[in-house]
């Protein structure tokens, strides 16, 4: 009986959720009610014979499920494919999955010819795809196809408008009624109706479009993308503007809008009413009548006053200083201000009925935006005033996370689009919603690595788990083992004595063969030799032999004591998403050269911990190998240098935080480059160093920004060098001179 009641609750909960999802001011609706006065309400009757009521269906009926009259599964699938085409496309009816089975998720871009008129933005999209790990130049192995025809602007009054697309695509042998094609679009339709017609037949192609109207949107098939401007960077992209979590999280203005007021035409219902909520104090809603050539024709009595008020405020200043920003529809549903507000941590208040929000398939916008209803504009001020500070604080942070994870560059927008499609195709290896909506975001959590959240370094906190209690020591050996006193042998012994060490892997990257089994030191843990391809990027390959969450990455020259290893590992367990290690380096802005500088000198701060002696999560091997652009990896392989800097870039780009340095007795010396030509031996030190400085600048250019962050602290054991008996100290060996 109880379970049934629980069940009834769940069902009622369904209706409740529905209320929750009202397009209108969702928050205000959640107002809970004052206690009812007894005996006033006429409740639903307690029927005297309620226990005699029949169930809605008897178990037999439920279990037999309509008896045996059933269509065969195959026949059903086939008839479905014929019925659900075009405007009713879904992946299972309009997409050919078999194309993706053999070669995986590969994307082909029709080669762009010189004479093709392609806009800057479309070029950025194409470049992003060509630089992505999914790109293929071979249409035979492609799973997804991207046109070389610029379809971004389909307003036929626009100069960017490409004519006769229908004829062109019909001539493409690969077109196949658009099957497995992905079409990008930012603007569709034109004055006065702005219908979402693209001016050509997209057939069964997937449409990634800005300003999508829900009715035109084919759920699970199309993708709503944000409108971005010509200036939107191809990669990298600016950070969000939130640099502190102020409490209370309210800014100078509560709510702001500055933009055009449409006096007529589509979208004018809302745009023409926005001025009503302006109070000149904490709600600034400014409109101008000046737009289009003939605005004065439609001019009304407000215009002059409004136009002059409009000039008094600066849009950028409002963005910076408002807690909430109104994002009304324009002529089309989406607008640039959506991304602008997101970046500015100005919580978007959307007034754009029927807009399918960007990446709505994976992003939970209820955590970062207020989805308002145009019809309830006048309730917006009280809605936002009632939003609890805790929620504002969380919303502000979430805008920043979303901006940096999915929107700050064209590359991210394109990548997100591709990953969403890929998640549909490879359902087993796809990301749960949680991953998309939690730092560091879906693009940085590779489902091919694992679908188990506990296998990633980021989710332990929310997940209530902790990383495994052992580590794998991973030593890169580049020189032959000739003498028993070689540092690598000592290192193996020291590391293997750590109580947390599970195994030792030696990556053999030397021309000479490794010594036979018996020549390696006797260790209590298994020692395995892996043969590498003698490239430096090999050291970050996701070898299946690495069975532990933690990797202790080591160079053959590194010298560490067991105590140091033990302590560093314990620290790493507290910071499993960061690099935790010993040798530190720093970057700085060299204003005389106008470039980044690199230093290995002793400094009061650092921004890198070298992987010659550092713990990090094995996931970063996968990320390094699978998500970094191939160009970067081949760069470090060519130089035989900088792979450790690149790893620091990668991890800091994920965490936005510095690495962690732990206590070390001896200071690490920058290792000379391996396998250097003999003639260059003298100057090699300098060469090596200047190479590293070059790397720093090249990486920063590739990433589009400088992800490294400085830290001023070192983590020592609690009693380190305290004046207390060494016998009380757990890590006393760290203090011996």
């Amino acid at each position: 009986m109880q379970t049934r009641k629980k069940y009834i609750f769940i069902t009622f909960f369904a209706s409740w959720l529905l209320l929750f999802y009202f397009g209108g001011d969702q928050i205000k609706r959640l107002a809970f009610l004052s206690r009812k006065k007894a005996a006033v309400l006429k409740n639903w009757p307690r029927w005297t014979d309620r226990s005699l009521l029949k169930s809605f269906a008897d178990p037999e009926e439920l279990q037999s499920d309509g008896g045996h009259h059933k269509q065969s599964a195959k026949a059903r699938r086939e008839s479905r494919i014929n019925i659900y085409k075009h405007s009713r496309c879904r992946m299972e009816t309009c997409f050919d999955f078999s194309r993706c089975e053999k070669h995986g998720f590969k994307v082909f871009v029709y080669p762009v010819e010189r004479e093709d008129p392609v806009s800057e933005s479309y070029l950025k999209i194409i470049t992003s795809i060509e630089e992505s790990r999914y790109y293929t130049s071979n249409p035979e192995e492609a799973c997804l196809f991207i046109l070389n025809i610029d379809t971004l602007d389909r307003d036929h009054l626009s100069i960017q408008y490409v004519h006769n697309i229908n004829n062109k695509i019909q001539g493409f042998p690969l077109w196949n009624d658009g099957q497995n094609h992905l079409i990008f679009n930012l603007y569709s339709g034109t004055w006065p109706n702005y219908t979402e017609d693209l001016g050509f037949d997209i057939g069964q192609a997937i449409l990634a479009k800005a300003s999508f109207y829900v009715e035109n949107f084919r759920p699970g098939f199309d993708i709503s993308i944000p409108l971005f401007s010509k200036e939107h960077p191809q990669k990298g992209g600016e950070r969000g503007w939130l640099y502190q979590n102020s409490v209370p999280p309210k800014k100078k203005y509560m709510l702001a809008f500055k933009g055009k007021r449409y006096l007529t035409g589509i979208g004018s219902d809302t745009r023409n009413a926005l001025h009503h909520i302006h109070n000149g104090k904490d709600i600034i809603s400014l409109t101008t009548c000046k737009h289009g050539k003939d605005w004065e024709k439609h001019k009304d009595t407000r215009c002059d006053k409004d136009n002059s008020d409009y000039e008094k405020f600066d849009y950028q200043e409002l963005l910076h200083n408002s807690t909430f920003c109104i994002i009304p529809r324009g002529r089309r549903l989406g607008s640039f201000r959506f991304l602008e507000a997101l970046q500015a941590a100005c919580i978007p208040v959307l007034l754009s009925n029927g807009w399918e929000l960007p990446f709505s398939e994976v992003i939970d916008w209820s955590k970062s935006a207020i989805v308002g209803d145009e019809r309830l504009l006048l309730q917006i001020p009280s809605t936002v005033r009632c939003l609890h500070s805790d929620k504002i604080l969380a919303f502000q942070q979430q805008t920043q996370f979303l901006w940096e994870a999915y929107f700050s560059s064209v590359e991210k927008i394109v990548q997100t689009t591709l990953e969403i499609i890929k998640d549909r195709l490879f359902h087993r290896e796809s990301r749960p919603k949680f991953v998309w909506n939690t730092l560091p975001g879906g693009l940085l959590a590779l489902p091919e690595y694992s679908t188990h959240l506990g296998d990633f370094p980021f989710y332990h906190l929310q997940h209530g788990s902790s990383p495994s209690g052992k580590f794998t020591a991973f030593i890169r050996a580049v020189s032959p083992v000739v003498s028993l006193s070689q540092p690598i042998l000592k290192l193996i012994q020291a590391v293997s004595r750590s109580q947390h060490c599970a195994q030792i892997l030696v990556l053999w990257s030397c021309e000479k063969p490794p010594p036979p089994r018996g020549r390696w030191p006797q260790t209590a843990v298994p020692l395995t030799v892996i043969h590498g391809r003698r490239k430096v990027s090999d050291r970050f390959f996701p070898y299946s032999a690495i069975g532990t969450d933690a990797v202790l990455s080591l160079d053959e020259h590194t010298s560490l004591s067991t105590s140091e290893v033990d302590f560093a590992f314990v620290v790493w367990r507290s910071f499993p998403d960061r690099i935790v290690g010993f040798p530190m380096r720093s970057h700085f802005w060299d204003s005389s050269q106008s470039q980044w500088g690199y230093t290995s000198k002793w400094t009061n701060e650092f921004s890198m911990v070298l992987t010659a002696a550092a713990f990090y999560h094995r996931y970063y091997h996968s990320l390094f190998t699978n998500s970094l652009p191939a160009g970067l990896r081949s760069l470090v392989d060519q130089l035989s240098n900088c792979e450790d800097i690149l790893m620091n870039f990668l991890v800091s780009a994920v965490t936005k935080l510095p690495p962690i340095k732990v206590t070390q007795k001896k200071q690490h010396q920058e290792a000379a480059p391996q396998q250097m030509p003999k003639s260059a031996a003298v100057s090699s030190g300098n060469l090596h160093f200047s190479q590293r400085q070059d790397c720093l600048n090249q990486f920063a250019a590739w990433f589009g920004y400088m992800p490294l962050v400085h830290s001023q602290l070192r983590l020592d054991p609690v009693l380190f060098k305290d004046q207390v008996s060494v016998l009380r100290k757990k890590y006393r060996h760290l203090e011996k001179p």
Partner: protein
Amino acid sequence: MCASAKYNNRGPALIPRMKTKHRIYYITLFSIVLLGLIATGMFQFWPHSIESSSDWTVEKRSVHDVPVIKLPADSPIPERGDLSCRMHTCFDVYRCGFNPKNKIKVYIYSLKKYVDEYGMLVSNTISREYNELLTAISDSDFYTDDVNRACLFVPSIDVLNQNTLRIKETAQALAQLSRWDRGTNHLLFNMLPGGPPDYNTALDVPRDRALLAGGGFSTWTYRQGYDVSIPVYSPLSAEVELPERGPGPRRYFILSSQMALHPEYRSDLEALQAENGESVLILDKCTNLSEGVPSVRKRCHKNQVFDYPQVLQEATFCIVLRGARLGQAVLSDVLQAGCVPIVIADSYILPFSEVLDWKRASVVIPEEKMPEMYSILQSIPQRQIEEMQRQKWSSVSNPLFLPLIPPQSQGFTAIVLTYDRVESLFRVITEVSKVPSLSKLLVVWNNQNKNPPEDSLWPKIRVPLKVVKTTENKLSNRFFPYDEIETEAVLAIDDDIIMLTSDELQFGYEVWREFPDRLVGYPGRLHLWDHEMNKWKYESEWTNEVSMVLTGAAFYHKYFNYLYTYKMPGDIKNWVDAHMNCEDIAMNFLVANVTGKAVIKVTPRKKFKCPECTAIDGLSLDQTHMVERSECINKFASVFGTMPLKVVEHRADPVLYKDDFPEKLKSFPNIGSL
């Protein structure tokens, strides 16, 4: 009036009398938590029973006595369901703002018996489930009996099962409801849609603009943001109490328990069984049961007979395969049994899919991939399976989750709590004022019997100094979120902590910037489990571990002042004020509980002047103090329901601390000197 003012002390209106009401409130309010739960996860949070509201007048009547309405044959029929309906096109929002406080009101039409011209019943009057559903709505605070105030209308016409009603006449019955208005703002509940031969995936009763909470939607009939997909209720699950089963391996890897499978599917499954032997169990209807045994409670494989639904608990994965309909009651049984569902139903919209993260609790396999099911499932790591079996996840949601390093220029506000030690206070002020990043100093004057010294007597310092006089001598005053605090960082410092150097304090601030969501403090403490006494113990000796820092000298985010003042669980805040002790331990619990993170102890240990002692001399007093502090830990752990403190073995020092390097080149040379 803002609703938010209410939610601190009021739980969800739906279940006014339950202990976990705050919890539920947040579940329902923030979908962030919802995302982490799945249907049965929620079952755990909902109450096991509702007390009936005895103080309300309740009619006592029989269902048979309800008025009969005769529907003329030519009475109007609503349009078919409008597939393009969305909130902004078909829903009347203006109805929902009638009362400024109570935004949502749900009205239930009174129960009628509908008959056609010939007096034949249109449908069963009402089913047990629908009656309970309506009772639950009626018992909630959403309910109104005033049709003019309602935002949402729920007809009492039971359409849970399409097979038990006459479609045209039911539609006519809907159309004659007093506020029908094309079905605007009307909500219908349906679990078994469609009928032979083609089994539509949504209710066939013409319903115009009405919203539909339905079981078995397909992607073509589901109107996202308008309809809600709900599970198909299984009355069987209600009859049988299944024991809790923890995660772990089960006897069968894959189990299929559905009886009415299409022969094609069945032969696919049987092939699977033939390939993989005993780990796959495909059950079917029992053919030779003795009289009186309900066939719905038994399943058979060859000659073996199994109890259903108990047998579901013996399997790791249980198949939920589409039949004529997409939504299957077996999904409810499977979830109830703690078996991980394998959903094989192309284009099916899973229940509550917009808020539930089904990928974390189920495996969805396309119908075409059925033959590969075994290998697909085998590729799932055991740890992940166990997590799916658990069906719920811990959810620490750090309020300061974004990784930010606040700008140094902001500085920090020092707050000194003082009673009457003016001389020592002035020394502290003078010392702290030397710290470069200090931006303001706030003295909280906790002595109501004495006024603070005159302005002219205070030390002259380079930053603003404000004195706040409190109205009561309470320890919690130190953690009040004063408006005067304009920085994110707060340094709480006792009026007798004069031994910290400017370098140490400045360094502490720099460390806080790197860990702004943690307590960053100087003296560290530890909690230990006392195996003899079977309880927690407080430890202040020289240990290799720390789990707390004392707030006699600690940096933390101003946000935690709000948390301490307004969100401290249970009676801890008052308890601390009454006992005049342990406010620091309470703060450590609070921060660790909400962030899941450990404290950061900075710089080497110093001989603090027994900073936590309320009385100065004497070993015995000291011991009493320790006992009291231990009691605090035990008390707080029981209020929090968990031990949130995290133990670590590290502390933060400047990068070059004690390194062989010229002192004058170090940023923070003066560290650790006594």
